[in-house]
Structures are given as structure tokens and as C-alpha cells.
């Protein structure tokens, strides 16, 4: 039976892909009930790659809940051989990309976050994360996470994973 709950976990991930974080949490909640009969095995967190977050931050940069990911859509580079702000070996960064505005829970301030894609290898396939706070339709490209921004990289459209880089403080919203 051991394989059953492990498979259920995988299914949860599959299902969670391309759904919002809220839905994801909801589902995993349900799933834990579903698999409660079977004890879960010790499992290393999918991504244990990232350096600890910068001073003035908190949270786990390899978790979809990390504050910088409020408008991300893709595989977290920290689970793919890079980190929340570096690309995996052999991939090329996309200089042009979309930005989000995320609130840092530690200082309560809004920051402009740039979601640069890492490009040149097929999808990493780990730690899929899709959150759409402030995401806009693709006719507003620089606010849209539905665009494969590798388009602007030297590796063309071949997408591997996504980073979340702080560009600076957001201007106060009125």
C-alpha cells in the first residue's frame, strides 16, 4: 500500500499545476484527508536549493507561498538547480519579462518583482507555481504571466524555470 499515498501526492501536484495557490491549498487539504489512512513517508522538500532569503525577508523560497511569487507562473528555479534569483546550470536568463507587485510580510512594504525566465532547456517540471495577483491579459504583456518570456532570450522560447528578482519598492498606491 505504501505506493498509494505517494501516488496520491503526485496526483495532487498534477492537479494543482496551473491552478491558483488558493485552489492548491484547498485541494491539498482535501487530499490529506483522502490519504490520512496511510502514514506519509519522510520526503526531502522538492527544492532544497535556494540560499536563505535576503535580510529583511522571511519564508521558504522553494515554496509557492513565498511572498515574491505573488504573480509567478512556472517552475520555481530553486527546485531546478538555480534559486529564487539565479538560473540553473546551462540555462540563459530572459532579460525582458513581466513584473508583479508583492507585499513583503516582514516590512509590510510593496515591492516590484521581476519574474525572469531561465531558458534553453526543456521544462524543469518541478515545483510548479501559479499565482495571479495583479496578473493581466496578454494584450498587456508586461503585466502578464501567461507569456513565455524566453521569447526575448538568446535561447528563444525554450522555457526551463522562473525566478523572482526584487527591482525595488513599489510607489505607494492611492
Amino acid at each position: 500500500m505504501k505506493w498509494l499515498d505517494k501516488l496520491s501526492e503526485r496526483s495532487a501536484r498534477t492537479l494543482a499545476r496551473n491552478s491558483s495557490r488558493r485552489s492548491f491549498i484547498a485541494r491539498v487539504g482535501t487530499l490529506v484527508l483522502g490519504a490520512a489512512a496511510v502514514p506519509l513517508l519522510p520526503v526531502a522538500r522538492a527544492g532544497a536549493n535556494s540560499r536563505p532569503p535576503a535580510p529583511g525577508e522571511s519564508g521558504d523560497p522553494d515554496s509557492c507561498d513565498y511572498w515574491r511569487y505573488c504573480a509567478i507562473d512556472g517552475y520555481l528555479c530553486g527546485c531546478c538547480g538555480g534559486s529564487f534569483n539565479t538560473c540553473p546550470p546551462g540555462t540563459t536568463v530572459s532579460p525582458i519579462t513581466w513584473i508583479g507587485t508583492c507585499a513583503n510580510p516582514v516590512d509590510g512594504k510593496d515591492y516590484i518583482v521581476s519574474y525572469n525566465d531561465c531558458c534553453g532547456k526543456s521544462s524543469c517540471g518541478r515545483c510548479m507555481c501559479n499565482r495571479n495577483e495583479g496578473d493581466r491579459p496578454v494584450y498587456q504583456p508586461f503585466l502578464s504571466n501567461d507569456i513565455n518570456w524566453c521569447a526575448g532570450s538568446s535561447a528563444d522560447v525554450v522555457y526551463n524555470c522562473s525566478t523572482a528578482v526584487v527591482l525595488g519598492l513599489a510607489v505607494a498606491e492611492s
Partner: protein
Amino acid sequence: MRSLTLQKLVLLAWVLPQPAIGLAEIKPESMPESIVLPADPNPHWVWVSDVVFHHMADGKAYLVDGDTGRFLGMLSTGMGFVGLELPSDYAQIYSPETYFSRGTRGERTDVITFYDPRELKPTGEVVIPPKRFPGMPTHNHSAITDDDRFLIVYNFTPAQSVSVIDVRERRLVGETETAGCALVLPSGDRRFQMMCGDGSLLTVTLNDQGEVTAKQRNEPFFDPQADWVTEKAVRFEDTWIFVSFKGNVYPVDVSAERPKPGPVWSLFNQAEREASWRPGGLQHLAVHQTSGKLYALVHQGGDGSHKDPGQDVWVYDLKTQRQLQRIELDKLSTAIEVSKDDTPLLFSIFIGNPTLDIYDAVSGKYLRSVEEIGLTPTLLQTP
């Protein structure tokens, strides 16, 4: 092997009638041949396209018969696959495709591949600028003019432009820049609209050779700062239906040279808005032309939930804007489509679970499911 065979027979004797004595043995069979599909598509057929997020170099399109749940065949459609283009006579299938000389690296080549719909075989290709829009699939990445003559493909590098392909002559006509405007919404034999960042439409006009003769930027028809419309607009007769994150419906008549916005209405009444009902999904709108019905995939969620899956389809009369029906789906869904005939089927699929669900689009009754349809099924299309 022998012993296994015996075991097997013992087992089977338990469940099967005793073999008749002297039964004729099975005649040797010939080499398998390939099935050819009927010339006329069943209106209850559906094409399911899969971008295959984990392996984007190997996109696929699957053809399923909604009446029987039979899987009829598939196409291999390359990297970053969005969807097929089906002309109104379904005499051919056009597929915008992207390939790299070394799978995920090397030289990029974009093509329109022409397939025969009966044999599902390539019959030719036209090489186009290697700039196809690499975005989350929608049916508005490319489109065919109303007379089925020209195929328009939206490009993003991130510079914005469109390529025009003459599908009758099977040649690339050319490319024209469309700075600030995206996607392709056909509106006549020689005209199409594009959605611009300021909430306006760009009207692009072609001549009979497919060359762009005019690009007219119009007045915004909605306020992007207040209420964004999704890029998943659908067409009803000569009107494009845009639905906003909040569920407001912006109809725009495109029958004339200049698009004419109509009165705005809402999918939701006050109580529904307060219960935070929202449209959501990847293909969250479908229109049944002959009955004038709009099918909208909805869920309860707040800001940022505009791409969340839903488990409810609400049906509206596009003439009266009245809500006619609420269909509760069997499963979560990110894409819905309705067949074009007068006893229509409603198709639904969730990108997180490759099972196609089929409903009676009039009664909303759940009919059947078809499993193992791809890895991350993205869009639905009916011939």
C-alpha cells in the same frame, strides 16, 4: 511458457463456457492497414489540444467522438502547440507549429502544416516567420478570415506583429508590425481586430492578395484600470463577446469598418457578485450560434482567480442577456466547448486531469467521460 498456458486455461475454464469441440481455428490475418476517417466529420467530434507543459517540444492534438467516447486519432504538432485552425468546410486542417533543429536548441523553424482530415497526414507546409506568440494557449493566437482564404498568426518576440498566410495558394503573404496590440479576432473576409493595451481594438484590413492595406486604432471600449476583459473573447455572428474579470460582458459589433461597442451587461446579479462568483479558466466561454446561447465557466473567487478552474457552467441568452440555466459539472474544468449542431454536446476538460467529460448541452445532463487524453489538455475545438 507451457506451464503458464496450462495454468491460464485452468483459470479460464472457471469463467468461460467449455470450448466447443472441433471449433474452426482463427485464420491468419493480413498486415495491419491504417484507418481512414469518414469524409464528413460528425459535428459531435472534438479536437483536444495539449501544450504538454512538462515536454513542450512534443505537443499533440487528439480527436474524440463525443457520441461514443471513441478516440479517433491524433496529430503531433511540435513545440508550444496552441491549437488547430479548422476551415468551415473542414476540407483541410491548418496547424501553426514550431520546431528546433535539435529539439530544444539549434535553428528555429515555424511552419503552417497542412493535414488531410481523413487520413490525418501532412500534405504540405508553409514556412512562416519564426515568431509565433509563445503564450498560454487561447483560440485567438491565430485565425482564418471569414471566407477561409487567409490565415493570420499573431507574433511576439517580444515585438508584436502578425503573419498573413494564403492557405489557398499555400504561401506566406507577409508580416506587418502591430505595436501595442495582440491576438487575432476575425471580422469579415478581409478584416480582423486586435486587442490593444489601452482597451481599444486595432482594425486591420487586407486586400485580395492578403496584403495589409489599413491599420485603424479605435476608441477604448472598456477601462483597463477599472475592469480588465480576458483575452478569451468569443464571437457570436458579427459580434465579439468580451467578458471581464468581474463578469461584465462587453459586446462589440464588428460588421462595419469601425467596431461598434454595444450595451454592457453582467453575468452576475448583485447577490451573485456578493457571493464573489467570477468567470475563470483557460477557455471559459463558448457560444452556440443557432440558439444564441453563451456558456460561461464560473467559480467563486476573488481578485487573481481569473484563471482558476470552475465546476459550474452558467448559460445565457445572448439576445435577452437572461440567465437560462446552471449546469453543475462532474469535475473541475478549465476549458469548455459546445458542438455546432442543433442537438449540441457540451465538452469539458481540466488541464490538471486529462479526462474529457461530455454533457448534453441542452439539458446539461452528464453523458460520459473519456480518459487518458494527453498530459495537460489545454483547449477544445469542434468542427
